[in-house]
């Protein structure tokens, strides 16, 4: 299988007031055409930073190293002009928190038409017609009315759909969605999942879905990458991961889900500034040994297309 996106030793760090934050450490994985990968982890584990690193959307204080190959070209090595040609047109990005992701003082129509024109080189009139079509395809009842509204006049779910519409403009082959369900109630979450499904169906794209919501990830993604404290700790097909979790962190997460009895994972994630020398999960792990605390584990293969970062599987 050829690969669409290949992350090769990607790390991102940025300087903060209290020190160097190593938000993403040595991430390797690939996404093939048609594949939807879910990047799952708790808040603050660096998954959003990784998503923004791919499109180089982070502030200049963040430094990314490694290779980000997309369609064979290294995004990390591109100049500003080249990466801009990728943004929106080849890779769409849906920001977390729809309330903040839309410009509050511009109408939905203005923002939507603008992104369509940037992507497709359309005239204003063509872009407007196209915008109406897209809105209709995302099951907005009255697209013309939505175009005239300001973001704050829409509900959370509607904003999310408007954002999705903006991302769809360039018919991109790849989508990065950052926490699309964060802070939404169950009903709206359903709508969002629906609109994202629709997006994938209409554009036939592959994608990287960043979320902390295991249930949502299992519904959307065929492959999961589990992230902990800046590292990928487990990678593999969604179904297999859920049926037989390997990493103690994943087992712990699954045990904490409501249907599995809500056994809360003890402790909290280590700081991204002062990392322990050994396994980063050791302090919260029931199986941790002296070796776990002393030596940092590498990713190892466990069965067909499954990888895990844990000594238990040596």
């Amino acid at each position: 299988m050829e690969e669409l996106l290949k992350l090769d030793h990607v790390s991102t760090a940025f300087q903060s007031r209290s020190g160097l934050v190593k938000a993403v450490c040595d991430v390797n994985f690939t996404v093939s055409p048609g594949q939807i990968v879910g990047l799952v982890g708790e808040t603050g584990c660096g998954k959003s930073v990784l998503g923004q690193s791919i499109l180089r959307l982070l502030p200049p204080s963040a430094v990314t190293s490694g290779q980000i190959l997309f369609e064979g070209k290294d995004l990390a090595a591109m100049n500003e002009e080249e990466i801009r040609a990728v943004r929106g047109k080849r890779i769409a990005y849906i920001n977390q928190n729809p309330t903040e992701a839309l410009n509050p003082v511009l109408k939905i129509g203005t923002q939507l038409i603008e992104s369509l024109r940037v992507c497709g080189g359309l005239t204003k009139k063509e872009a407007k017609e196209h915008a109406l079509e897209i809105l209709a395809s995302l099951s907005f009842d009255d697209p013309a009315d939505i175009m005239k509204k300001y973001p704050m006049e829409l509900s959370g779910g509607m904003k999310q759909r408007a954002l999705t519409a903006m991302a769809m403009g360039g018919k991109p082959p790849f989508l990065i969605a950052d926490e699309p369900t964060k802070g939404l109630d169950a009903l709206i979450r359903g709508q969002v999942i629906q609109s994202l499904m629709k997006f994938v169906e209409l554009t036939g794209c592959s994608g990287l879905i960043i979320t902390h919501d295991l249930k949502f990830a299992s519904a959307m993604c065929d492959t999961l990458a589990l992230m902990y404290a800046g590292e990928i700790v487990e990678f593999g097909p969604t179904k297999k991961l859920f049926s037989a979790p390997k990493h103690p962190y994943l087992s712990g997460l699954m045990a904490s889900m409501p249907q599995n009895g809500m056994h809360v994972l003890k402790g909290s994630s280590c700081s991204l500034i002062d990392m322990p020398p050994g396994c980063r999960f050791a302090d919260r792990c029931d199986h941790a040994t002296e070796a776990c605390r002393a030596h940092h584990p590498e990713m190892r293969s466990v069965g067909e297309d499954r990888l895990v970062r844990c000594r238990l599987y040596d």
Partner: protein
Amino acid sequence: MKALPVIKKTAVAILTALFVSFLTYGLLYISPGDPAELLLTEKMGSMGVQKEVVQRYAEQLGLNKGFLAMYKDWFVDMLHGDLGTSYKTGNPVLSDFLSRLGCSAQLALLSTSISLVLGVGLGLLSARKRNGVIDRVTRFFSAISLSVPSFWLAILFLWVFAMKLGWFPIADYQGIKSLILPAVVMGVTGCASLIRVTRSGVLDNLSEGYVVTARARGLNDRQVFVGHILKNVLLPVVTMVTSNLIAHVGGSVIIENIFSLPGVGNFLLRALRSKDFPVILGFVFLMGMIVVVLTTIADLLYLAIDPRVRQGMYEKK
């Protein structure tokens, strides 16, 4: 729907104006000195004036009626455009005001334009390269311009540019030529707040989610800046410009005095020194009215610029 906030704003403005007039009148009512006596002394010269004469004169003028009745008289006259006559010049206060308004208005507009260009320009420049050379220089400049006493700067400029270099007229008023120097002083000392508002506005907005979204959609820096950030920064800028203008409606008293300009502020100052009450009352009232009008215009501008303000007004209801 859309007319509602406009009506509400206007109603508040009218109420404020009424209260301003009431307060002004009240202030002068309790001021020391009997206006009738002052008037008579003015008319007859400085010789002692007899008490009975003063009383009769006060009755004649309606000055012994009690506060509310007098206020009513004054208010009704005011509605007819009669704000009394100056003790000193004998001219109607309104015509004195209007004849001096031109100079002050020009000065206010000129100086506000200077601070607007300087403030927004420098603010944008310094925000684009945070902590760069331009940013550091600008921050230093804004700290100085906020702290330097404007009247001192005015004298310094007068001394250097008008007296030493002879570029500008000193005492005789020559229209716009005489206004340049004072306008520059007011513009420079007034731009600091605008620099700060613009700079911090841009910097705050840069980290907003919508900027990330805009960049992720493939917009270039210029498109993000002009199309997205600028409109978000406009609101605080409008607020600052209005407060600058308001400060200059009467805050130019000192500057007008130093450059001996025939403006409203300078005339008011002379009236204050000679206790010319009708002029003081009329001028303060008219300035208050101008401020009320300016504030209302600014409020209406917000409504036009920022949909959030519109929404806020409905939500409060």
